[in-house]
C-alpha cells in the first residue's frame, strides 16, 4: 500500500484542527476570569464552581442523563425483541415493509418528527414534559437499535439454535444463553447509539418539551439566544471529558465484545 504524502497528512491535520477548534475554544474560555468569550484575562476555576452551585443547571443535566439512559434502555429492549421477530419472519414482503417502516424515523427530518409527535401527544392527551420527551426519545431510538442488532442476528447460524434445542435447552435457555450472548456486541452498539442520539437531540425535544421540563440542548438554545455566561463553557468542558471517557470505555467494550463473539463461533 502506498504511503500517504505530506500534503495528505497536512490536509488531515487541517480537518482535525477544524473539527476540534470550537470545542477547545469553549474549554479555553471556561478558564477565563473575564465574563465573555474574548480577552482572556486570567486563569480561574470559578466557572466550574458555578456549574456545581447552579442547582437549576444540575437538575437539567440530571434530566438529560435520565432521559438518555432510560430511553436507550427501553429502546434497546423493544428493539432487540423487534429484530428477533423480524429475523424469524417468514413472509418476505411483510418483512420488507416492516423494515421500511422501521427506517422511516431514521431518515425523517427531526423537525417533522418533532412536529408530528407534538400533534400525536396533544391528540392523545399526553402532558408535555418528562413523559412526552421520554417517549419521543424511545421512539426515535428503536429503529437505530434494530439496525444495529439485525445484522448480528442474520450472521448467526441457525444450526446453533438447533444444536442447543437438540441438547435439551428450553426456549428460555436458547434465548438467554445462545441468542443474547451472540448478538451482545450489536446490543451494546445499539444502546450506545441510542444514548448518543438522545443526548444530542435538540429539534425533537424542543417540540415536545412543554414549559416545565428542559434538557441540556433546549436550555443551551434558549440561553444562546439571550446571552450566555461562561458557566456553559465550563459545562461543555466537563461534558467533553465525560464524553471522552465514555468513548474510550465504549471503544474497549466493543474491542472486548469482538473476542467472545468470535470464540462463540468456534465453540
Amino acid at each position, binding site marked *: 500500500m502506498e504511503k500517504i504524502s505530506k500534503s495528505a497528512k497536512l490536509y488531515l491535520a487541517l480537518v482535525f484542527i477544524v473539527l476540534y477548534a470550537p470545542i477547545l475554544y469553549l474549554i479555553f474560555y471556561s478558564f477565563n476570569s473575564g465574563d465573555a468569550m474574548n480577552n482572556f484575562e486570567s486563569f480561574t476555576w470559578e466557572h466550574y464552581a458555578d456549574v456545581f452551585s447552579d442547582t437549576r443547571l444540575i437538575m437539567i443535566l440530571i434530566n438529560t442523563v435520565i432521559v438518555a439512559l432510560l430511553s436507550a434502555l427501553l429502546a434497546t429492549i423493544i428493539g432487540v425483541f423487534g429484530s428477533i421477530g423480524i429475523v424469524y419472519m417468514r413472509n418476505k414482503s411483510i418483512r420488507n415493509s416492516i423494515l421500511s417502516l422501521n427506517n422511516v424515523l431514521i431518515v425523517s*427530518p427531526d423537525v417533522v418528527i418533532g412536529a408530528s409527535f407534538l400533534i400525536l401527544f396533544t391528540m392523545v392527551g399526553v402532558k408535555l414534559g418528562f413523559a412526552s420527551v421520554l417517549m419521543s426519545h424511545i421512539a426515535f431510538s428503536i429503529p437505530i437499535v434494530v439496525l444495529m442488532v439485525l445484522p448480528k442476528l442474520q450472521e448467526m447460524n441457525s444450526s446453533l439454535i438447533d444444536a442447543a434445542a437438540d441438547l435439551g435447552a428450553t426456549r428460555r435457555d436458547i434465548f438467554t444463553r445462545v441468542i443474547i450472548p451472540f448478538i451482545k456486541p450489536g446490543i451494546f452498539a445499539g444502546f450506545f447509539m441510542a444514548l*448518543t442520539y438522545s443526548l444530542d437531540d435538540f429539534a425533537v425535544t424542543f417540540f415536545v418539551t412543554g414549559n416545565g421540563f428542559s434538557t*441540556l440542548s433546549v436550555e443551551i438554545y434558549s440561553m444562546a439566544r439571550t446571552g450566555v455566561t461562561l458557566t456553559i463553557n465550563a459545562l461543555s468542558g466537563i461534558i467533553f471529558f465525560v464524553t471522552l471517557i465514555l468513548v474510550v470505555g465504549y471503544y474497549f467494550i466493543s474491542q472486548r465484545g469482538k473476542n467472545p463473539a468470535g470464540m462463540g463461533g468456534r465453540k
Partner: protein
Amino acid sequence: MQTKSTKSLYLVPYYAWIALFVIAPIALVTYYSFFDINGHFTIENYKNFFTSVYLTLTISSFWYAFLITLFSLIIAYPTAYWLTKTKHKQLWLLLIIIPSWINLLLKTYAFIGIFGLYGPINAFLNVFGIGGKQILFTDFSFIFVSVYIFIPFMILPIFNALDKLNPSFIDASRDLGASSWATFTKVIFPLTINGVKAGIQAVFIPSLSLFMITRLIAGNKVITLGTAIEQQFLVTQNWGMGSTIAVFLIIFMVIIMIITGQRDKGATSHGKNK
C-alpha cells in the same frame, strides 16, 4: 405452535411502536394539513404553499441544502480516502467521531464566539490588515457551521465504502497503465458510490430541515423549510400550515431516497460507531 404465539407476544411493543410512532404521526400530519388555523377543513394550505413566498422558501432551502451537501462531500471524500491509508485508521476514525458526540448546541454556540466581531477570526483578519468583518449572520457562516456539523456523517459512510474496497482493483488498474486520476475516476469513485449516496442522504435531508443553526448563526436571514415548520407550529400556532410544509418535506424526502437509491443496509448509522 406455542413458540409462535409467544414469539409474537414479544413483538407487541415493537408493533405498537410502529403503529403509534411511525404510522400515526404521518397520518396525523397529513390530516392536520387540511385544516386552517381556526379548525375548518380546507385545502387553502396547499394553495398557499404554491404562492411565491413558500416557493421561494423551498427553492432557497434546496439551494442551501445542495451547497452544504456539496461542500461536505468535497471535504469529506479526501479525508475519508486518506484516513483509510493511515496506520491505526480505526483510532483516527474514532477521533473524527468524537466531536460528533459533543452536543450540537454547544458546538454551534462556540461558533457564535469564534465568528463574533471580537472573535479569533476577526482578530486574525485584523492582524493582516484586512480589518474586522461581520462574519456571523451571513450565508458563509451558516454554510460553514452546517458543513462542520454534518461532516462526520459524510466521512463515515465513505470511509466504510473505501475500507471495503478490494485493493487489488487499484493495483490492476495501475498495472493496466491507468493514471492515478483515471484510477480514481474510473475505479475508486464508482466502487464507493454507495458510500457517497449514503453520505448525501445523511446530509441533504437534515439540511433541508435545519432550524436552530439558521436562528443562532444565520440570524434569521436564512429560512429553511425546517425554520418555517418550527415557526408555524411553535410561534404562529398554525398547525395546519406547518403540517402542510411537513407533508411536502416528507414528499421531498421520499424523492431523495428514490434518487439516491437503495442504500447499503443502514450504512449511515452503522458507520457512526465503527
